[in-house]
Every structure is written in C-alpha cells, then in structure tokens.
C-alpha cells in the first residue's frame, strides 16, 4: 500500500513558504465521502489537507489546461500515466516547464470502487513518473506491453456482435462531454465534438451523433492517450470508453514501431510521425 501523504505535505509546505508556487494540485479527502478528490491548494494553511495513497486515481494534469490555472506557477503530483500525459502536454507546447514543480510518484497502482486494482494498473506499462523534479517511491522501470483483455475478447467476437454492443454504448451516451473535459490531452478551446464550441457540428444528443463524436474523439486521441481512465470514471453513463482507446493503442503499437504515448519528452503522438516502412498493403 503506498502512502506518501507526509512527504507531499512537506514538499507543498516548503514550496509555499519559499514562495515558489501559486497553487499546489494534489488530492484531499472530503469530509463527506471516502473518495479522494483533486485539491487546488492556494494557501500554506491548507497544506495539511493533502493526501496520497492508492485511492488517488484522478489524473491531475487535467488542471494544467488554461481555463483552470491560467498563468499561475503550479506544484503538481503525478503518477506514471499522469506524467506521460504531462510529457505530451509539454511536447505540444501547452504549458511552460518553468512554471511547474513536479512531484513524481513511482506508482504501485490505484484501486477501483470495488477495492481491487484498477484494470489499467494491471496492464500498466510505466508506473514510474517519466518527468519530475522530485521522485517519491522506488522506481521499477518500464513493463512489457499487454493487450487489453476486453479488447482481445471483443476482437474474437463477430462483427455483428460488436455492432450490437457499440450501438448500445452510443445510445447511452448523453453527450455531456465529461469525457473530454476530464481528459488532460483534450485541451482544444474549440473542441470539434463539443456542441457548445464546435463550428462544424451542432449535433443533438442522438445515437448517431454519439457515434460520430466518440469515434472522432478517440481517433483524435489515438497515439496520445495514456490510459489514465479519467474519461471512463467521469462518464455518468458508465460507458466502456477504454475499449476504443485501447483498440487504437494496440493497432498503433503493433504497426508503428511500438509507439507508446508520452514516454519520451519531445516525442510527439503517433500521428505526428511517419516511417517509410509503415504498413501499406491495405491501400490499393
């Protein structure tokens, strides 16, 4: 069981007292629930609200988007997957590295609502933070890529069975856009699938609209998704969004030189690179 509560409180306290940051983003318990929620601490006196243990699951890099923290100096806690998202945000020039103080965690996996280890943690490829100013815990290094069990199960089913499952998925989408708001890599101010901002698409909440939106969303994230499951946890309809993202991740891993998002700084997403030997045989 990992618990870095004390270390994080110390680090945050030190940063505030040295005047190095304006806001520290971590986790806190609420008095009203057992979940941990993201906390944006702005005062030294609130530092003792911070906690970190195996329930700290939300990907905090989501708060690096402009609308949440604007131009402030930020202290941040990141686990392995979170730090890969951060790497990508840095690569894509969404945030200035100088403004950040990053506390990296060598993560041992988070638990889901039922108490067992979350699925994405069981299939984790990089539990240690890849970018940090300070690392807590013992790094265990990169792990072997595993194909997601749900995806391989579905691949074994017939086309028609998959069509039935996904029709139900898209029918239950209420187009709330919680998935894209909670994804750290969805930072477009004018999102093309968000009906409020899209100049291309003012869709109603239909099954067909959900098909269009979710497919386009996952294809825009392909090669950039770090499998933090923020989207799936945010979805009020409990849609299995990881199926789409993991399917893309698998195709990209198997066909494009084993590319994984955000492992190396300045390595852009899979669709921003090419190789002369990319598979071509499906093209006439």
């Amino acid at each position, binding site marked *: 069981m990992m618990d870095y509560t004390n270390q994080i409180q110390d680090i945050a306290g030190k940063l505030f007292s040295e005047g190095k940051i304006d806001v520290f983003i971590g986790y806190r*318990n*609420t*008095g*009203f*629930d*057992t*979940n941990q*929620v*993201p*906390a*944006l601490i*702005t005062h030294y006196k609130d530092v003792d609200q911070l906690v970190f243990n195996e329930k700290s699951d*939300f990907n905090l890099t*989501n*708060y690096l988007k402009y*609308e*949440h923290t604007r131009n402030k100096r930020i202290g941040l806690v990141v686990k392995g997957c979170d730090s890969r998202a951060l790497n990508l945000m840095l690569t894509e020039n969404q945030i200035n590295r100088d403004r950040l103080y990053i506390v990296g965690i060598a993560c041992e996996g988070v638990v889901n609502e039922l108490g067992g280890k979350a699925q994405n943690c069981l299939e984790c490829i990089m539990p240690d933070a890849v970018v940090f100013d300070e690392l807590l815990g013992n790094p265990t290094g990169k792990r072997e890529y595993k194909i997601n069990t749900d995806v391989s199960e579905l691949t074994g089913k017939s086309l028609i069975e998959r069509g039935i499952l996904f029709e*139900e*998925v898209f029918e*239950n989408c*209420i*187009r*709330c*856009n*919680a998935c894209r*708001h*909670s994804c750290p890599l969805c930072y477009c101010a004018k999102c093309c699938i968000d*009906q*409020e*901002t899209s100049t291309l698409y*003012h*869709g*109603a*909440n*239909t099954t067909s609209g959900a098909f269009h939106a979710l497919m386009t969303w996952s294809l825009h994230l392909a090669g950039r998704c770090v499998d933090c499951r*923020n989207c799936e*946890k*945010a979805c*009020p*309809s*409990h*849609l*299995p969004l990881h199926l789409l993202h993991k399917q893309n991740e698998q195709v990209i891993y198997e066909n494009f030189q084993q590319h994984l998002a955000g492992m190396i700084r300045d390595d852009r997403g899979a669709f921003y690179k090419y190789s002369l030997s990319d598979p071509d045989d499906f093209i006439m």
Partner: protein
Amino acid sequence: MILSCNENLNEMNLITYITDPAGLQKFYEAVISTHATFAPVETFGKFDYKPVTSLSECDPGSPVPLTRSMKPLFFPKSAKIMKYVTTSEGTAVSDTVDDPLAGKRVILGVKHCDARALQVLDHVYKWDYLDTDYEKRRENTLLVSVRCDEAARHCFCTSLDWDVEHTDAVDVAVIKGLDGKVYIQARSEKGTLLLEQHPPGEDDTSGSSAEEIRKQYASFAGSFRLSMDYKTVSAKMKNSFDSPAFEEASSNCISCNTCAFVCPTCHCFKISDEKIRDEGVRYKSYDSCNNVYFTLMAGGHNPRLVKYRRWRQRAMHKFSYYKERFGVNLCVGCGKCTVSCPVNISIFEMVNQVADTIVTASQSCE
C-alpha cells in the same frame, strides 16, 4: 404556491393494501402485462428507466446511487420538436412529430425524490407558457414508487423543504415494512384506480398499516448521514451572491456538464437543427449552465466565463432564485450530482459552506 407537503393526505384515509414480497412481484407482473411499463433496467452497471415487457428484464428495487432519474421519460436527452421538408413549392413545417413518450404508461421503481422533482418542474413548465409535450407526458404517466429503506451516502432529501413521508408526488407508494410485509398505498386518484384494477393483497380497512409505515419511515429517516438546517441555509443564500466560498468550493470543478444532465430538476436545453439535403429535424437537447460557453452571447461577451460564477449561478438558482419565484426549492436532495461528479463536488457541501453552516457527517466515512 403548491403545497410542499400534502396536508390533505390524511394517512388514515389512504387506501393501503398489505401483501408480501411474492405478492408484490405478482402485482408488478400484473401491471407489466396490462400497461406499457417502464422500469429500471441495468446498462453498464447503472439503472435507467426503459420499456419492459417482463419482470425478469428489470429491477424495480434498484439501488439508489446507481439509478438514474426518470427525467429522460419526461424531458428526453434529445427530443424532436419540429420537422421540415423543402420542395420546389416551398418549405413545409410540421410540429406534430411522433412522440414515443406520449402514450399512457406506468413507471415502476420510482424513487420519491425523482417524483418530487417532477412536481417541482411542473411550475416552470406551466409558467410563462404551457409546454404541451411535457404536460401530455405527465398526464399519461402513473408513478409507482418504492420508498427507500435507507439513505445512500449523498442523500439529503429529508433536510429540505418537502415532506418526504407524505409526499403525493407518486401515485402508488410501495413501502417495505420492517415486519417483512409490503404495504402498497394509493396517493392519488390514478393510484387508487390502479390498485382497484390489480389488488395486490388485502385491503387494510382497519388502518393498522399506518403504524408500520410510520416505523419504516422513522428507520429510514434515522439512516441519513447528511442533514442540514434548511431554513438557515435558505435565508442566508439570499444574500450570498458575493460570498468567496463559491470560488473555494468550485476550484476543482472541470465544467463537464454531468451534474446538470443527471439532475432530476435541471431543465436547461438547447435547440439544434440537423438536416440532410432538403429534410431537417429540429431537436431540443440537454444543456448545462456549467458549460463555459453557456452564457456566450453574439458579439463575444461572456459574463460567466470564470468558473466560480457558473457554480454560483447553479447553487443560487437551486436554493434561492427558484424558491423566490415558485416557492419550492429546485433541489430535491437526491445526491445524483455528487454521485456522478468526476471530482465529487457536492452541492450540499457547497451551500453549507456558503451559508457558513458547515456540518460534519453524522456517521464516520465507511
């Protein structure tokens, strides 16, 4: 002003049947076989109200935190309100569109908070103009509820301004007594007729069931983790526009629209047109005041660009403005917003923080 607790409902006069769990199942089956019925059906781990043709497909006693409200049956996520076709002779517009939700129907497994939400919504849908679609759906629906045995983590319905025990928001109330029997009570004329049509058990003419029903309510009311002093909060909310607590309480909100979409009383909507070639359909779909661009105006000005202003608007609308206009609170205390929120923001916590009446939960967490 509609009475928020039905003083006319004298419990002694309510028609009540006594039966047992097996009798309850038979009653449900009888209703399903004779009426178009909606009941909670499990999809991806949560329960939505869907049309059912047999009791095996659904679970009227579905767990409270996983059950979405039946708002989509009255205010669907996407409703067609108009159709148009353009031909060489001009454009023909028709607003009689087949409404799949307008037929007579019974909804099983309704929670009392969601039913109360419909009563609260009735005010705004009849306010400046009568929303005929909504009215028709309300008229043609019979609500059969299951009174909760105990409160879920985020429930606070008993702390607000409506009478949870005697509410007439449902037509038939199913109460599972602590003695193992099931009490089925008619709370309206429609409910009485249904129970006469399918008597679920013995008619309690002696009035002995009233005691058991009260006991069940007492046990239920005692199971609440959250409670607040509504009168104080309500009075303080009126003057809380400039409170700095809004900013603090909403700092981790990600403006994802989820709370407004799952809330049984939220009714904001947007209109959009979808067309292919010469035919088009106009839809009315859910919207949320939490969205960044909700108040974006032509010309580019957006008074609620900053996040805490949107949360202030939401909390004030629910606990202050709606109350001033219609006399009832726009929040019914169901807690669905908190359950669905990705970062667990609780409107209960927020209004208490704003009104400076912060209370700790009465039982420790888990």
